[in-house]
């Protein structure tokens, strides 16, 4: 089957939360966009993540990332409202703040030090994370386990139903004229005359610009466009309980989150098992034990399912945004925390890409930082 599609302004490769947010943003900026996505069973972090819109602790090693994360968190309410309006789908976004439970003095001290180091990162005393003691925690989380000695509360943290986010983005981008083509794995993409062309099982697609936003699929496609995407896989496993009518958690925490449907997500692990998403029960039992230590009330619930999903991580864990120097008009965007960054991607990064170049923005996210690190 070959089909020569009418040229678009921009091809977005990858229909996960990063690609879809950019496609929606590009369409909002007036572009004609085609999104090419892979099939049903592929690595797709956007389907297996925890749904946190999380600011605290992000970018402790790169303040530009901390500021960018905060920018996104600030944009999230408006972003969620817009998607909600355009789709009639409530993304279940909430911003009650978020808690990171600490189970040891060492953990608590590290959090205290980090919060202090970052305190001025977005302006004097504006970081918005503070250490709370057990006494205060008890007021917020009745029924907390005895092993929790304190927590770090982030004022700017929140959460969203990530599956509704992905669906909402897909509906909203199509409503704005974006063409979404699934089961169209891009085998290769290259410069083609003044623009770019991508080869897929569903034919050849071309456009003036191309954005690689294919998660781990980006690594392979990038070199042909003079792009560099050093990414590594890291597996996270998550448990989910049956629906619970009781609101157990007034706010999301870094390992426990109650969804709008009532289920409780229990995360998560950090496993170096390559690109495998296979379940591994010894880790699931560790996750279960940790959750019950934090919150014994969960003892009443059953686990309905678990899953494993592969994080899209750069060597330093921060985003990699690359505008090709050798093929202007080609971009590659990859990050962990694509849910958190969805608002900034949709409402700011997309506009910059629409302009055709990064200009002087996002220098900190350039992949050259990794070759420097190696050189020194």
């Amino acid at each position, binding site marked *: 089957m070959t089909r020569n599609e009418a040229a678009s302004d921009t091809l977005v490769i990858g229909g996960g939360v990063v690609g879809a947010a950019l496609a929606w943003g590009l369409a909002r900026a007036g572009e004609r966009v085609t999104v090419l996505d892979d099939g049903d069973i592929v690595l797709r972090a956007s389907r297996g993540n925890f749904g946190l819109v999380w600011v605290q602790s992000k970018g402790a090693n790169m303040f530009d990332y901390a500021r960018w994360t905060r920018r996104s968190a600030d944009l999230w309410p408006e972003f969620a409202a817009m998607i909600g309006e355009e789709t009639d789908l409530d993304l279940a976004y909430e911003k009650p703040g978020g808690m990171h439970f600490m189970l040891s003095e060492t953990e608590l001290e590290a959090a205290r030090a980090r919060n202090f180091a970052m305190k001025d990162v977005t302006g004097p005393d504006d970081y918005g994370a503070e250490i709370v003691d057990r006494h205060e925690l008890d007021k917020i989380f009745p*029924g907390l386990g005895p092993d929790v000695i304190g927590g770090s509360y982030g004022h700017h943290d929140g959460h969203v139903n990530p599956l509704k986010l992905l669906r909402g983005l897909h509906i909203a981008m199509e409503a704005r004229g974006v063409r979404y083509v699934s089961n169209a794995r891009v085998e290769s993409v290259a410069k083609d005359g003044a623009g770019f062309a991508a080869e897929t099982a569903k034919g050849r697609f071309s456009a003036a610009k191309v954005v690689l936003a294919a998660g781990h699929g980006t690594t392979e496609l990038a070199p042909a466009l003079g792009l560099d995407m050093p990414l590594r896989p890291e597996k996270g496993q998550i448990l989910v309980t049956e*629906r*619970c009518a009781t609101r157990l958690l007034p706010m999301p925490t870094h390992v426990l989150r109650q969804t709008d449907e009532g289920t409780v997500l229990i995360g998560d692990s950090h496993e170096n098992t390559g690109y495998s998403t296979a379940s591994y029960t010894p880790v699931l039992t560790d996750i279960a034990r940790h959750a019950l230590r934090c919150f*014994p*009330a969960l003892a009443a*619930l059953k686990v309905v399912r678990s899953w494993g999903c592969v994080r899209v991580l750069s060597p330093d864990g921060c985003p990699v945004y690359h505008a090709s120097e050798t093929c202007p008009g080609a971009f590659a965007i990859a990050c962990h925390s694509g849910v958190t960054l969805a608002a900034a991607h949709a409402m700011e990064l997309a506009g910059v890409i629409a302009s055709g170049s990064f200009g002087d923005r996002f220098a900190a996210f350039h992949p050259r930082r990794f070759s420097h690190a190696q050189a020194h």
Partner: protein
Amino acid sequence: MPKRIETGGATVTFTFDGRPVTAIAGDSVASALAAAGITRLRDSVVSGAPRGIHCMMGACFDCLVEIDGIPNRQACMTLAAEGMTVRAQQGAVSVSEGGRA
């Protein structure tokens, strides 16, 4: 209407929403409830629609009931026992602070 094809034999008694239900040897909670003419076992978690037994072989999870304080148990996969407290469910489970359903 449900009807037993044989009579006699040992029985056990449990309650469903407080009302006594008699079960015979081999009865699951679901079959004993069916024999007692009780068809509505719960209200669904999304729309609150009434549900009862459907597959009787542990596949469909429609016969979920609370048994001895533990919700969402498959009535068709649980043998009826003397003194059980069985309750119908309304929507999703509720949990108390102490971790009791």
